[in-house]
Structure formats: structure tokens, C-alpha cells
């Protein structure tokens, strides 16, 4: 495999190709139909969704080469690509991946075809536009994960909002307008300060003595030394942008609304991939760029506290949700709390665990949303109380829902356990107090999900309209098969993934630790 990839010079073109394939797909969709016309007719539906699926499958197949072409021993950028972009500002189209980006890119390319299959029969209006937006969204998300240029990153970060805004706002539920606006304004407000920070960084990157112009290049920005005060402000700006996206308690209230109103695939993409942008932002930017600020004791304690509150609070609030989708949305707050705990505990195990939680939350929560979508398509309600006892009517669905729930609960031998276990065992070394309370999350997770699946699958089959539900079809089984395979693969043999991420995770830990230490000594030396 490696030989073949070298032969076709895979590393040189793969990243731009990954950004271009979805765009090309969007263009194809648009030229074969009009964006504005309501082309939800039966003739248009199959072709549009089939075109989209083909492009997403092509994207997936092409991206899989990264798994082999990526050198697991390397910690820094690989498969780099660099091209001029905005010359006066010295902004460049420079791309690259490390072990962290690698897994996020692959997660995206695996989830997206499934999201299309999840929309297969549920999207019936403006079909072309829908899939075109999904394709554009993919370019934006992948762009975030592979940008080595700060401006490019920001552009991709914002681009991604637009398609999601429309996906929720057009194909969403009853309160879609409120939800999409809330989503847009919330995240936009968070990111504007980050833009200010980026401009500041650009300005500070110029070194006149060495005749170096200002730049958005990630590695250049990394080398800038800041005063502690400036670093704190900059970190604050980045923190807000990313914390909203994660979402961290108390910046999370856009998520339940967005999830409930979004169409199934929108929720899947939102939960599986877009939430990871926030934690990715901390790993890539907020912490390595401003290690001294991030590791300031009060900052770190505050964030760790918010993370642990998020874990327990998210679980408790999830427990009392009458709407299954909202329940899963709040469970995301809880899971992402584990990620934040792992990142800020800053041990190799906890960071690796955080990365695994990012991946496995993408798989399990994506799967949960897909399953909820299947329920919704059959019964047009997401209220837990509308079901009950359906395990005997739809045994395949029920089996899958139980498996996916167990992985979300973190049963050992599923993916959920690996991430949480690594986060907790790593965090316990540096922050036993926080890890102790975070561990109690395993109890609440069992409480909310088991209670929910009991009320849906078990108990008396007492509602006549549930007695004639149809079980899953081949398309739905295929989608779930992929995800269930991933659940057990990561749960039983996560080593190939851990091995690929380890150098980058360890570099992250070193960068932040040493950066914060040198800042501290410098601060002592100055004053």
C-alpha cells in the first residue's frame, strides 16, 4: 500500500484534493439543477442524493490512503501543501496534518457518507441544495482540520457556519428559525474576538530586524513570545470562540436547540464533527500558542472546574429530558467535558484519551442521532414517552440502540470506555480531585441512557401505533453496521489509532508544559 501511495505521489496532492472533491460535487449538483427551484420531485431526488453519495464515497476512499501514508513516528506536519493565496497579507494556502488532524479528517470522511445515507429518504424538499450544502460544509470542516495558516483556518471556521445555518434553518423542525439564528449568533459572537486575536498575532509576527514580514503561518505564530498579560487576553479571545463550539458549560445552550431542530444528518454532523472543532482549537491553537496563559493556575482550575461541572451537569440534565434528541444533546455536553478535562489535565494518557473521546463520541453520538432519525421517520415523534416496549416489534433496531447506548455509557470493550478510561487515569495523576468527581459521571451516564432506552424499548407495548413499526432496512443496517464495527474495533484494539496519535499528543504535552514553564521563568526574570 505504501509503495503504491508513494508511486502516485499521494502525499503531495491529497489534502487539496480532499478540499476540492466536495466542492466539485457541489458544483456538479448545482449545474445539473437550479439552487432556488423546489426540485423535490421524485425524479430529482434519486439523482441528487446519488451524486452526493458518490462524491462522499470518493472522498472517503481517497482519504483512506492517509491511514497508510501517514508516518506514525512523526509528530509534526505531514502531507504538507503550500500555495500562494493573499499575497499582500502574506496569507497562504498551506495545509498539513499531524496525528491529531489525521484522525479528525478520517472521522469526517467516514461520517459524511453515513450522514448522506441518513438523509436518504428524510430529505424531500430542495434536495439538490441540501446535498450541495452538505458538500460545502465538508470542505469547510476539513479545511479547519488541515489548515496551517491562521487566516485560512479562520475562513474555513466561518465558512462552515453558513451551510449549517441553512441546513438547520431550511430543513429543520418547527422552531428551526430560532435554533439556526441562535446557533449562528452564538458561534459568531464567540469567533469575532478570535479574529481580533488573529490580527494581533499577525501583527506581532513581523520581525523587522530580520526582515521577516508579518505572517499567518502557524509555526511562525507559535514562536512569538507574548507578555503574560497579552497572552491572557489572547487566550481569552480564543477560549471564547472554542468554548462555545465545544460546548463548555455554561456556553452550551445553543446545542440542545440546534440539535433538536436540525434534520438527522445535521445533528450527526454537528455532534460527530463540528463539536470537535472546539476541542481541536484548544489542542492546536489556544494552548500551544499561549501556554503560559492556559496554564496559569486560576485559568486552568477554572476550565477544569467547568469541564467537570459539564460532565455531571450535562448528565443530570440529560436524565430529565422528555425529548430523546435533547437527551443526547445534553449527553454531548457531558462527553465533551471529558475531553476538556483530558486536555487540560495535560498528561499523555489524558490527552490521548481526550482524542479517543473525540473520535468515539463522533461515532457513538452520530449513531445515536441516526437511530433517533430512524425512529422519527417511522413515528414522527422524538418524545420518549411516545414509545415503550418496541423491542419486540423492531428487534434489530433495539439491538443496535442497546449496543450504541452501551458504547456511549462506556462499557469496557466498546470505544466509549477507552476514551473515558484514558482521560480519567491520566487526569488522576495531576488532578485527582477533578478526576474523582468526573468519574462519578459513569454512574449518571448509565442512569440517563438506561432509563431512556427502558422507556423506549422495554416496558409494556401499550401504544397501538407502535405495534406496526417496521424494522430496519438494508440501507439503515449498512449505516449502523459501519458504526458498530468501529465501536468494537476502537474498544478492543485501539492501538493503531493510539500509535498514530501518540507522537503528536506527546508533542502537544511537551509544547504546552515547556512553554508555560519558560513563560513563568521569563516572567520571574523580568520583574
Amino acid at each position: 500500500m505504501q509503495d503504491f501511495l508513494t508511486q502516485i505521489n499521494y502525499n503531495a496532492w491529497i489534502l487539496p484534493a480532499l478540499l476540492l472533491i466536495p466542492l466539485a460535487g457541489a458544483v456538479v449538483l448545482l449545474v445539473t439543477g437550479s439552487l432556488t427551484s423546489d426540485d423535490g420531485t421524485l425524479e430529482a431526488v434519486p439523482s441528487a442524493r446519488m451524486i452526493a453519495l458518490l462524491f462522499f464515497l470518493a472522498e472517503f476512499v481517497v482519504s483512506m490512503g492517509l491511514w497508510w501514508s501517514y508516518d506514525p513516528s512523526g509528530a509534526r506536519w505531514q502531507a504538507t501543501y503550500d500555495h500562494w493565496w493573499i499575497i499582500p497579507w502574506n496569507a497562504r494556502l498551506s495545509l498539513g496534518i499531524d496525528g491529531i488532524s489525521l484522525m479528525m479528517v478520517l472521522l469526517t470522511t467516514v461520517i459524511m457518507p453515513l450522514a448522506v445515507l441518513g438523509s436518504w429518504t428524510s430529505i424531500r424538499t430542495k434536495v439538490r441544495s441540501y446535498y450541495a450544502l452538505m458538500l460545502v460544509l465538508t470542505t469547510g470542516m476539513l479545511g479547519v482540520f488541515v489548515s496551517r495558516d491562521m487566516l485560512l483556518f479562520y475562513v474555513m471556521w466561518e465558512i462552515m457556519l453558513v451551510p449549517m445555518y441553512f441546513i438547520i434553518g431550511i430543513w429543520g423542525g418547527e422552531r428551526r428559525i430560532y435554533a439556526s439564528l441562535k446557533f449562528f449568533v452564538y458561534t459568531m459572537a464567540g469567533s469575532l474576538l478570535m479574529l481580533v486575536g488573529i490580527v494581533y498575532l499577525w501583527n506581532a509576527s513581523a520581525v523587522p530586524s530580520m526582515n521577516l514580514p508579518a505572517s499567518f503561518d502557524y509555526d511562525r505564530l507559535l514562536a512569538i513570545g507574548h507578555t503574560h498579560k497579552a497572552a491572557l487576553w489572547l487566550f481569552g479571545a480564543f477560549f471564547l470562540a472554542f468554548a462555545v463550539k465545544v460546548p463548555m458549560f455554561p456556553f452550551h445552550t445553543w446545542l440542545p436547540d440546534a440539535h433538536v431542530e436540525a434534520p438527522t444528518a445535521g445533528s450527526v454532523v454537528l455532534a460527530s464533527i463540528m463539536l470537535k472543532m472546539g476541542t481541536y482549537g484548544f489542542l492546536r491553537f489556544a494552548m500551544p500558542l499561549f501556554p503560559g496563559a492556559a496554564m496559569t493556575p486560576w485559568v486552568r482550575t477554572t476550565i477544569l472546574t467547568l469541564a467537570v461541572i459539564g460532565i455531571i451537569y450535562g448528565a443530570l440534565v440529560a436524565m430529565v429530558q422528555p425529548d430523546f434528541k435533547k437527551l443526547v444533546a445534553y449527553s454531548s455536553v457531558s462527553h465533551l467535558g471529558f475531553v476538556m478535562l483530558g486536555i487540560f489535565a495535560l498528561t499523555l494518557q489524558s490527552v490521548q484519551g481526550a482524542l479517543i473521546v473525540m473520535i468515539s463520541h463522533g461515532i457513538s453520538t452520530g449513531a445515536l442521532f441516526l437511530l433517533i432519525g430512524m425512529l422519527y421517520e417511522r413515528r414522527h415523534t422524538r418524545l420518549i414517552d411516545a414509545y415503550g416496549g418496541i423491542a419486540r416489534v423492531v428487534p434489530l433496531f433495539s439491538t443496535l440502540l442497546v449496543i450504541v447506548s452501551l458504547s456511549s455509557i462506556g462499557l469496557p470493550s466498546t470505544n466509549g470506555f477507552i476514551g473515558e478510561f484514558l482521560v480519567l487515569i491520566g487526569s488522576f495523576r495531576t488532578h485527582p480531585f477533578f478526576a474523582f468527581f468526573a468519574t462519578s459521571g459513569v454512574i449518571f451516564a448509565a442512569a440517563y441512557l438506561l432509563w431512556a432506552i427502558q422507556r423506549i424499548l422495554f416496558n409494556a407495548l401499550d401504544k397501538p401505533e407502535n405495534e406496526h413499526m417496521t424494522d430496519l432496512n438494508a440501507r439503515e443496517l449498512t449505516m449502523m453496521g459501519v458504526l458498530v464495527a468501529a465501536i468494537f474495533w476502537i474498544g478492543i484494539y485501539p492501538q493503531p489509532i493510539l500509535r498514530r496519535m501518540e507522537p503528536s499528543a506527546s508533542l502537544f504535552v511537551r509544547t504546552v508544559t515547556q512553554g508555560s514553564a519558560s513563560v513563568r521563568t521569563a516572567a520571574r526574570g523580568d520583574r
Partner: protein
Amino acid sequence: MLQDLAAVDPHPLAATAARYVGLLPLIPLAGFLVNGALSLVPSYKRGPNDPSAVPHGHDAIGDDHGVSHEGAHGAVGDDRHEVARHPFAAVASVVGPLVLALSFGLAVMLWLAMAGASEMKTPYVQTFFDWMVTGDLKISWAFQLDQLSMIMVLVITGVGTLIHIFSIGYMRDDPGYPRFFAYLNLFVAFMLVLVLGASYPVLFVGWEGVGLCSYLLIGFWFNEKANADAGKKAFIVNRIGDFGFLIAMFLLFANIGTLDFTGLAAAAPGLGYNSALVTTICLFFFLGCAGKSAQLPLYVWLPDAMAGPTPVSALIHAATMVTAGVYLIARSGVLFAMSPTACITVAAVGTLTALFAATIGLKQWDIKKVLAYSTISQLGYMFMGVGAGAYAAGMFHLITHAFFKALLFLGSGSVIFAMHRAYHHTGSHEDAQDMRNMGGLKKYMPVTFVLMWIATLAIAGVPPFSGFFSKDGILGAVFARAQHGALAESTWLGMPGSAVLYVMYGLGLLTAFLTAIYMTRLMLYTFHGPNRTGEAEQAHLAEAPWSMTGPLVVLGVLSAVGGWLNLPAAIPLGPIGVLEKWLEPVVGAATVAVGGAGGEEVMSTEYGLIGAAVAIALLGIIVAVVKLKPAALVPKRDAVPSHGFEQVLEEKYYVDEIYDDAIVKPLVSGSRNILWTGIDRGIIDSLFVNGSAVLARGVGWVGSQLQSGETGAYAWAIAIGALAVLGAFTFR
């Protein structure tokens, strides 16, 4: 490092059948996959609306006694009565028990290899592949075979095979037949992972895995809310214990950097003898045990777990899974031996649980509930043993208990089976598990009657039945620890360890007395006296088929002679202390560390202890026979409610109600009213998010008012502004 050692000096088991230890859980796992597929495929093929699978006209569980869950399965209600033989029942009947028999065969081969190998001082460890390896954390999928895990494997696969065979008859006409065997097979697979795991995390896979299967099997008849509730309760209460298990693992790793048992043995002394750290670690592990093995205060799930089919109660909730906590402490002997405080705590909790559960057992009417509380009580004995550092005695009781309690549960299963059939024939809706509806069954079920009496004498501690020897071993050990050794010399909560242990010994005897009473009560009410089932039903009461009684006979023999596994020196009826010698390489050092090297009792004391134990057991039986009047009992529907302390016992000290009111309800309503509607929707969303939107709109409104389009207003504004600027410059 281990592999290096092995290269230098090959392990005695290296070239034997032990190589195939990895197959042990894989065989039942294969059974799970086959049976699981069988349970899904036909329902898919035939379509979900098969009329035989979904009875119409559901009745809302009109059962006046919420615990008679067997009703869902069998013969009670007409519309709930699902006698639909699964199309693949025949295949499942072969595959389900066969994989167990194969595992048992392999286990016997391993045992022969181990018995044949001379001098096996170190465990045989087989590493398969990396699981979680990152930085200095190294966790592999690895199994460890030593004398302790061997014993457990034999019990699990041996008793498991018998229970699987029993299930063929018991579950025959259940529409979920392959699903039942799938779960049962999966359970055995996880249980084997639990006892074979070479590190705490791998053990934990089995630990939570068996909890999952327990959850699925308790809620096997999931269409009744009570059953589903019971399964969920078991899982969540166990998760509280697992929280402790996790914390203990984290503490271990943070302090000694390893989680496998080999590494632990080497590094444990570094934790410091009787340090706060090692005590904390042990107590968190014990929290896990309290969950899994149903000890105070986490025992509440086990009585509810009786909602599962009776073979499940026998296998999971009596013989194997619930003893995992005892196994964990024996496995962690090297840790517990370093903390007398933790040891005494374990023994004390065990003692209190044993007594507490035995008192509740005195007043239960549901035959399975009596056995459930009896199980909790007997598990308490086991913890008394391993807590006192008598690991071999604790494991001995674990084994004999697996025999006689499996027999009691399966025997009660036979009884319930017969009761169901009888009620089914007459279309009656009576409770088939309530002892008040039984009585005089010895006439109809003579085989079950005799076997149940053997098990009763065994659990009551009457010689020469197995339970006598194992219970005596524990009580004797506690008495010996009270006299000398590390525990006697330590202080526990400010009290001298010696005194605490003497009290435990006394309470242990008292519990033995109560055990004899409640078990005799069960036998009297079920098998003796007049029959209360009903005139019409009596004609249909009969012994179960031989596929069900056969396993009972085997268990009956084992319950009778199991004591010979570990005869005390005082009763030399055969080889002395076989089990103790067998386990010596694993737990010997820890036993010595807790109990001291000597441990040889004066023979006269020994005979005194034995005499006391026998006397108290016989006394209990006599008291029960004299005091209880089966003839005076009336069927359940005619019974009058009890009063005073009797009622408190019948209502199980109201612990469930207390937990519900003190923990569950406040947590749910707090989450709903304070966290969700209060903080989430109230403060964050309404005040901050939408509030800021309102604020922005307000500012915009003010701005829009300013742009009124009236030139006069603009002129004024310009004039005032100009003056202000001028003024500012002037008075600067």
C-alpha cells in the same frame, strides 16, 4: 519482562493445554453469536408483526403482587401467556449448552495439566495483543492462569453447564428462547474474562460485562415494567460500585505505575504497610465488591434481580457473578494484607450484611426472595472469611455455596415450574412463587424434595454436608484471627481488633442460627404440611422432566460431599485441606501476612468451635420445626397483613423506600427543576442569551429613535455636540 523470564525458565504450563486458555471465553462467545443471530434472523424474515410474537390486547400488569414476575413467562395470565416455541429452539438447545460443555471440557484439561505440572509457583500468563498502550501506561489483553482462577473457571463452566442443561426444559416454550441462551452464553464468556484477566482493566472488562448480561437477563421479560426496572436498578447500583473500582485502579496506577497482577505483587510493598493510601485503595476496591456482590449498602439490587428467569438467578445471582467481589479480594490479597484496617472493614461489612439479610429472610413469602436474601447473607460470610485473611476458607465457601445455592434456586425453579403448570391448567391467576400457595409438595415432587433438603442442611451447616465445613472454616478463622495476628493487634475505629473479631464471630454464629431457621421455614412451608395450591390444581402438580431434575441430582451430590474438598485437621476423614494447599501459591503469603505463620489451633478449642456451630445449626432447625405451623398457613389471597417488627422485616426495613425518597427522587426532581428549568432555561438561556438579544434590540431601538428624520432635532444635536467639544477643549 515476563516474556524474558519465560525465555530463561519456561513455565511448567508452557507446553501444555494451557496454551489454549484464550479459547475458554471464546467458545461461549461463539455460542452467543450463533444464538444471538438465531434470535434476530427469524423475526426479521417473518416480519415484526407476526401474530404469534405480539399478543394483542395487552393487560396492564394486573398483578397484585408486583414481584411475581414469572407470570410474564408462564402460565398465569391468558393473554400474557406466551407459549410460542421459537422456530430455532432446537438449534439453540444444542448450541447453548454445548459451548458450555466444551468450555468445561477444556477447563478440565487445563486443570489436569496444572495438577500434573510440578511446582507451579508463578501464574501462567499469556499475552495476546496490546489494548491501551500509551506512554508509561501499558495494558494488554492478557490472561493469567493460576490456582485461584482455575478454581473459578471450573466452578463457572461446571455449574454453568448444569444450569444450561436445566434451562432447556425450563425455558423451552418461551418465544425468546435463543435470546436467553445468547445472553447466558455471553455471560459465561465475560465471567471467564473476569477470572482470567491478568490485570485489573481486563478483569474490569469481565466485571462490567457480567453486569451487562445480568441487566439483560433480569429484564429478560422486558415487557413488564417491574422486570425492566429491576434490570436497570442492578446496572446502576453496580455502576456505583464500579466507580469505586475505577478510582482504586486510578490510585494504583498513579502510585505504582502498573495495573497487572504480576507488577502489583512486586510493587505493592512500596505503598507502605497500613498507610492511608493502601487502605483507601482497598476500600475503593471493596466499594466495587459491595456493588457486585450485593453487600451493605449496595445490596438492594439483588432481591429485585429475582425478576429474571430462575436459571439466571441460580447461575448469575447465586453461583458465579455475585461471588466476583470475593474473588477480587482474594485476587488482591497482596494489597489487603497490607491494610488491617481494610481487612477488618471488609469482614465487618460482611458480618453485618450476613446478619441483616438473614433477618429479612425470616419473613419473606416469595420463595425466590428468601433465597435472594440468603445469598446476600452467605456472601457476607464469604467476605467475613476473605476479610479476615482466610482466603482459602472464603473461596471454599464460595465453591460449596455455588453447589448448594444453585441447587436451591434450580429446585425452587422446579417448584415454580410445577406451580405454573398447575395454575395454567386451571386458568388461575394465583402467585406461583408465594410459599403460602404451596405446601405439601413432597408428595408431588419427591426428588426435588429430597435434593432441596440436602441443600438446606448444607446451607444450615449440618455435618457432614458441604456448607458445614466451609462455614466452620470461616468462623474458625475469624476466631483464630481474634486470638492473634495482625488483625487482633490492630485497632479499628478506635476499637481493639481482637474485640471486634470476637464480636464478628458471635454475630456469625447468630447468623448461622437464623440461617437454619429461615431455610427450615422455607422447606416446611413449601414441602410439608397440607397443600394450599387449590383443589383443582393439585391434580396437575408433578415433578419436572429429567432434563431438569438431572442437573439437580448432580448438584445434590456435590452439595453433600463438597466438604471433602477442604477437610479441617480436626476431622481427618480424608486428605486434609486440599483446597488450602492448592491455593497456597496464590494466597499463601497474604494469608500468613494477615493471620500470622502459626495458625494451628489447639485441638480442644477447635472441637469446641465445631460443637458450637453444629449445636446452633441444629437448634435453629429445631426451633423452626417447633415454632412454625405450616398447617396454620392460609393461601396468599386470604392472608392478613402482619404488624410491628414482623411487618418491618417483611417490608425489608423499608430500605428501598428510603433510598428512593432520599436519593433518587431528589436527584431527578433537582435535575429537572433546579438544573434544567432553573439554570439552563432560566438563568443561562433566558437571562443571558435571550437577555442579551433583548438588550441589543433595545440599543437598536434607541438608535433608531434618534434617526427621526426631523432636521430640527438634528440641528439641536449638532449644536450641543459642538458646544461639548469646545467645552472639552477649553476646560482641559
